[in-house]
C-alpha cells in the first residue's frame, strides 16, 4: 500500500542523509522524495512516498521518529489530504500535432512554459495519476523528456504539522 509520510526535521547538515540512509539501511522503499526549508528557516519539511504492509509502515515511522533530527512526522494517507506533483514535460509539437498538443494541455489545465518551432515544454500540476494520464493522452511517442518533482502533500482542514 502506498503511503505519504510528511516529516518535519531540523534544518541541519546531514539530516537528509540520515533519513535517506535509514531507508536503504533497513531495506525500505523510497518512491518519491521532496524536501525544502519551511517558513521557519530552522526546520525543513520532507515528504516521502513509500510502499509496504502496515507492519513495515509502522516500523518506518517509528525508525524515522527515532532519528534525533526528526521533530515530528505524520502519515498523510491515514487521513484526508491534498497531494500534488509538478511535472515539466518536453513534447514534440510540429505540423498538425502542434494544435492537438495545445488542446490536450488545456484540457489538463497545464501551461506551456517554453516554445520553439518544434517543441513545447509543458508544466503540469496534479496527482500522480493525472500526470500519468497526460502522458498517455499526448502519446509516449511524442514525449522527448519528463521531469517530475515527486509528491508533496498536506492534510485537509484544521490539522497542521508544526512545532
Amino acid at each position, binding site marked *: 500500500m502506498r503511503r505519504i509520510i510528511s516529516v518535519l*526535521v*531540523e534544518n541541519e*547538515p*546531514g539530516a537528509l*542523509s*540520515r533519513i535517506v*540512509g535509514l531507508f536503504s*539501511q533497513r531495506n525500505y522503499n523510497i518512491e518519491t522524495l521532496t524536501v525544502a526549508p519551511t517558513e521557519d528557516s530552522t526546520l525543513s519539511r520532507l515528504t516521502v512516498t513509500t510502499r509496504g504492509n502496515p*507492519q513495515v509502515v*509502522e*516500523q518506518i515511522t*517509528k*525508525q524515522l*521518529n*527515532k532519528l*534525533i*533530527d*526528526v*521533530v515530528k512526522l505524520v502519515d498523510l494517507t491515514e487521513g484526508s489530504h491534498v497531494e500534488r506533483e509538478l511535472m515539466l514535460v518536453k513534447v514534440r509539437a510540429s505540423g498538425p500535432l502542434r494544435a492537438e498538443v495545445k488542446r490536450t494541455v488545456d484540457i489538463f489545465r497545464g501551461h506551456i512554459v517554453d516554445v520553439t518551432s518544434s517543441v513545447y515544454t509543458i508544466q503540469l500540476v496534479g496527482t500522480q495519476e493525472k500526470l500519468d494520464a497526460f502522458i498517455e493522452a499526448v502519446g509516449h511517442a511524442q514525449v522527448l523528456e519528463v521531469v517530475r518533482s515527486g509528491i508533496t502533500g498536506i492534510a485537509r482542514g484544521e490539522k497542521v504539522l508544526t*512545532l
Partner: protein
Amino acid sequence: MELLSGADMVVRSLADEGVKHIYGYPGGALLHVYDAIFRQKEVSHILVRHEQAAAHMADGYARATGKPGVALVTSGPGATNTITGIATAYMDSIPMVIISGQVPSAAIGSDMFQEVDMVGISRPIVKHSFLVKRAEDIPEIIKKAFYLAQTGRPGPVVVDIPKDITDPNLKFEYQYPETIKLRSYTPPSKGHNGQIRKAVDLLMQARRPIIYAGGGVIMGNASTQLTQLAKDLNVPVTNTLNGLGGFPGSDCQFVGMLGMHGSYCANMAMHHADIILAVGARFDDRVTNNTAKFCPDAKIIHIDIDPASISKTITADVPIVGPVGAVLDGFLRHITDYSGSRDQEAIDAWWRQIDEWRDSRGGLFPYDKGDGTILKPQQVIEALYEVTGGDAFVTSDVGQHQMFAAQYYRFDKPNRWINSGGLGTMGFGLPAAMGVKLTHPDATVACVTGEGSIQMNIQELSTCLQYDLGVKIINVNNQALGMVRQWQDMMYDSRYSHSYMESLPSFVKLAESYGHVGIQVTTPSDLRPAMEEAFSLKDRLVFMDIRVDANEHVYPMQIKDGSMRDLWLSKTERT
C-alpha cells in the same frame, strides 16, 4: 568568562562532564588536542595499541558502570579502526562518545592525507553524530553528545572535529552547559499508567507466567525492581544473553538463559507460557527461533524504552513504552493495590512443571564430563565461578567459550557480565576487560576468550603492562574456531573449512614476552590449582592457556526454523 582554545575546550568539557579516563591514539589531526591533554591532570589518557581496542575499552567501561565511555582517535584510519567498536556498542545499546579528529575544514572533500568521511561512514551505527563547525560550539556539542548517548535508548555518539577548530591560537569564551534540551528529542520518562494496570491484571490472572528480561534491565538500572517484581509475583525468570545478572543467577526462580543456547527449562517454559512479560528485551532472532512458531499460547506484555523495538518481530498485546525502572515501579504499586484473586493452584502446578523440566535433565545445563582424561570447556567456567566466588567481572569474546561462560557462570549482580551480544565481535573481550579494570582497580576481572578471539586484539597485552592492568585471561583453547566447527559438524558433515589454525603461538611465552605471567593447563587435575594461583597473583596479568576438548559442542541448541522448544540436547538427543 574564561578564554580557551578549541583543543583546550575539548579536554575541559570532558573533565566538566566528569570523565576520568579516555582511551585513544594520537595522530596529525588531533595533535592540538593531545597537547591540551598533556597540559592538564583531570582527565587521564590511556594509550591503546589499536583504535578498535579504544572503542571496546570505552564500551567495557560503559557496561560496567552505566556511564558513557570515551574514545579519542585521529582522522582517517584512526577513525575507521573504531567502526567495529562503534557497531558493537550500537547493537547492544551501550552509551559511548567517540571523538575523532578530522582534516582542516577547508580541506574536507579534497581527499587530503588521512581524510575519511567519518560522519558518513559511521552514520548507520550511531545514535547521532556531529561535525563541529565552530570552536565556540564545542562545549555544547560535547554536552549534547553525552546527553544523547546515555538517555532514552542509549547508544554511541560520534563527534568529528576538524583540526582548524582546535587551533591553540584562537581562543573563545568557555562555559560548559549544565543542562541541555533538544526540541526534537524527548525520551520517555515514565510508562502509560493505563497500560501498566492492564499488564498487571493480565499477570495476576496468568496461569503459566514467565518474565523474559534483557539488557535493558541492566542499562536501565532496574534489576532491583525486576527482582522485587519476580518475588512478589512468584514467577520464573529467564534472561537473554545481555540480560544476565539483571536477575540473580543463583536464585531458585531463575531458569537460565533462553534462546539458541538457552536452557531446556527456559525454552520449554517460554514455549508453554500463557503470559510473557518481556522487560528491556527485543525478541532477537537468537531468542525467538522461527517467529511464526514463537510461543503459540502466549499473550505478550512488552516494556521497552524504544517504541521501535515493540512489535518489530513479535507483536505485543500490551505494549508499554518507558524506562524499565519507572515502569516496573508502577507494576509494583499496582500489584499492592490489586484486589482480584489469583489462581494459586495453577501457579503451583506451573512451578511443579518447571521443576520437572529443570530436574529431568539434572540441572539447567547438564553436560558429559567424559572419562576425566580430557578437560571440558564447561569445567573451565565452573572452576572460574568457584575460584572467583561468583563475584568477578567477566568479559568474553565470541564463540563457544562465550556461550559456556553465559551458561555456567551464574551472575548475581548486574553489570558483571560484559560481552558483545548483538554484533558478536571477536576481539572484544580483552579491551573490554581493560576498561573495567581501570575503573574498578580492586575488582577481579576475568576475560574468557578463545585462541581465535584473543588473537584479534592480542596487541593490547602491551597496554596492560603500561597501565598495570591485572586482568586474568582465561583462554579456552581448543585449537579450533569452536562455534564454526560445531556448525560444520552439525550441518556440513564435519568438513572443517578453515575452522582450525596451525602455527598458534606459545601463549605462555607470548604473555611472558609482554611482561606478564603465563600458565598452561592441559589436564583436568591441574585446572583448579592453576586457576587459584592465577587469581592469587592480585596485581599481575595472568594469561591462562587452557587446552580443552575440541570436539565439545554447546548444548542445548535450537533447531533452525523450529519453535523455542525444538532443541538439540546433545549430539544424539533432541526434543
